[in-house]
């Protein structure tokens, strides 16, 4: 168990900058998720944490100890790979035992015959067997101990990979898109299982995914990365409600946040087509800004004189995603309960409104700026950048 600090880590391959001075620190026991579109550098950062690749610059500290230049085996980390990376010729029990055997038995004692003959090696092996049995029991793998990886389902392989990682009780767990090879149903199940495992072990987890749902549901800290830069690190709730910039706001949330161009009027009022917004934007009059509105903050009222026209309704069961064409050829998406959307049909005219205080404002470069209620918070975010 240990805290984790990543400080100014930089990495490039040739002329391509993969990581641009990435810094993030989380306390002991945190579940840090690195999330971002593919190619954003999140996997590279994880592999640098593991020591599988060396950074060009910057430091890594685990539990306060500088591990920047240590080999993977000396960093007290364990890793779960996207493809699980189980040794195909070994049984489940052997796969889980490997990290312990490699650490506790010197090379010559691992020879099949010697390990049986030497009392000391035999004692060590007995201890290892007990620990492996414990890990297998914890993950419900006991009945599969003698199977080989090919004989296992995807979910079972996933569990073996977790077992191999946790049997050593490392200071930090690294997980590289561990659920991406599973089918949708199993993914939801394993998501809960990994979160429960984290709660039980209390170890620091670093989890890489491109799936925002995984990031939001499992983590204590979400780090959004894009094009090699860390855009924001915060709790899932904060990332969603108070995104530091437009890229984060657009990446997190499904359906995607509605973004409308607007102009700042006198007194900081927002001027945009088809919508009236309260609050003052913290930008000089005349500046172009962008307004972000989450689909669930958009209110639709059936109104023959309304400015919007419903173009499509997607029914997911518990909620409706209603697309509305409004002035300026903009399409907005609203998330409604079936009751709220009961009267709407494609072609219906609607009036649009926004829940008070929920709209977000961004400047022309996408940085978050204050808007009404959240001026102070937004300023803070802006200056922290």
């Amino acid at each position, binding site marked *: 168990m240990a805290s984790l600090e990543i400080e100014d880590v930089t990495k490039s391959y040739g002329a391509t900058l993969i990581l641009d001075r990435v810094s993030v620190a989380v306390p002991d026991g945190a579940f840090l998720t690195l999330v971002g579109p593919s190619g954003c550098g999140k996997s590279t950062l994880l*592999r640098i944490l*593991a*020591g*599988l690749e060396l950074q060009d610059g910057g430091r890594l500290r685990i539990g306060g100890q500088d591990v920047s230049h240590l*080999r*993977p*085996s000396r960093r007290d*980390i*364990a*890793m779960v*790979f*996207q*493809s699980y*990376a*189980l*040794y*195909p*010729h070994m049984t489940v029990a052997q796969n889980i035992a*490997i*990290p312990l055997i*490699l*650490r506790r038995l010197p*090379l010559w004692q691992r020879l099949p015959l010697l390990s049986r003959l030497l009392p000391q090696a035999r004692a060590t092996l007995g201890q290892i067997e007990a620990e492996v049995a414990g890990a297998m029991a914890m993950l419900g793998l006991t009945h599969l101990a003698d199977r*080989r990886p*090919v004989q296992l389902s995807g979910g079972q392989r996933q569990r073996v990979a977790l077992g*191999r990682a946790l049997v050593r009780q490392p200071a930090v767990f690294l997980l590289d898109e561990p659920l991406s090879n599973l089918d949708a149903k199993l993914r939801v199940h394993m998501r809960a299982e990994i979160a429960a495992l984290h709660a039980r072990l209390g170890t620091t987890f670093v989890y890489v995914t491109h799936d925002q749902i995984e990031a939001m549901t499992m983590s204590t800290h979400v780090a959004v990365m894009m094009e090699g830069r860390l855009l924001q690190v915060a709790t899932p709730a904060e990332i969603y409600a108070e995104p530091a910039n437009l890229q984060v706001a657009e990446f997190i949330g499904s359906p995607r946040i509605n973004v409308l161009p607007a102009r700042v009027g006198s007194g900081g009022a927002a001027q945009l087509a088809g919508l009236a917004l309260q609050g003052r934007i913290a930008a000089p009059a005349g500046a172009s800004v962008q307004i972000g509105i989450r689909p669930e903050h958009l209110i639709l009222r059936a109104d023959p004189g309304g400015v919007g026209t419903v173009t499509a309704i997607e029914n997911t069961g518990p909620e409706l995603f209603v697309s509305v064409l409004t002035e300026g050829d903009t399409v907005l998406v609203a998330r409604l309960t079936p009751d709220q959307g009961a009267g709407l049909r494609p072609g219906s005219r609607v009036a649009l409104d926004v829940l008070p205080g929920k709209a977000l404002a961004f400047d022309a470069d996408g940085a978050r700026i204050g808007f009404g209620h959240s001026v102070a918070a937004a300023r803070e975010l802006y200056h922290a950048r």
Partner: protein
Amino acid sequence: MPAELAPGEGLLGRAQRLRRIGAALTGWGLSLPAALLMLVMILIPTLSAAILALTDYQLGARSIRFVGGANFAAMWEDRVFWQAFANTLIYTALTVPVSVGLGLGAALLIEADPLGRTTFRTIYFLPVTALLVAMATVWEFILHPQLGLVNVALAQIGVTGPDWLADPDWVLPSLGFIFVWQQTGYNMILFLAGLKGIPSELYHAARVDGADRGIERFAMVTWPGLAATTLFVTVITTLYSFRVFDTVAALTQGGPSNASNVLLYNIYREGFVYLRTGYASAMTLVFLALILAVAMVQMRGRRGGGA
């Protein structure tokens, strides 16, 4: 209603039957060319050899007589056959481990560093593309007792090299060396393909798990990952090694005093020099049985190691 449906069902049943027949015909039609080729190229010659092996037929002779197992009995007593048999096994035992081992080593070295990968791959593979009969003349010169590259080089350090191709103790190793020279590149290519099939994440996992030394990662990942390739390469090399003929025919003609006589060359000599077709056919069957036995090892290994 059932009465109205009946004709429809009849039509449907007819359509299903027609489709089944069509599918069967298509299957037979598609496999026919391959089946014909196998019949003409493999089964009929093998069958002819099996029949000839039971006769005293001589190439060009007008008479042919059924002699039962007499040819096999003669083989049992034939010292030259047994020497050729033993020579073939010794040659195989010499060449297979060396060319498989060198092929693996070359593949590992080439795969280890991208620097010059294509160049080295080409260099090692070059001998495979060379025509062995043509290259044999080059080797004859290299191994020449007085003028040859090898003995001239040895003389520089004060060693008098043997007459590589005329010394009964050295002729098999010398021929084996030429085989290794050619086969190593082929084995290397197969091993390179095998190495490509090992996921790199396994090496990463091994490093995280604590396999710091290269030898540990080789034992944990590379060697098990190459199991199927190694079996295949060994079997293929063994089969090629059994079939050694061209270097023997071009360089030594089985000499000196049968020291480099091998099974295939012996068959050739009996059949086409002494014209004893019946006897040569009997030896061919024995040779075939040997090849088949090795091929079975491969097939069994493939079934067993399906993982």
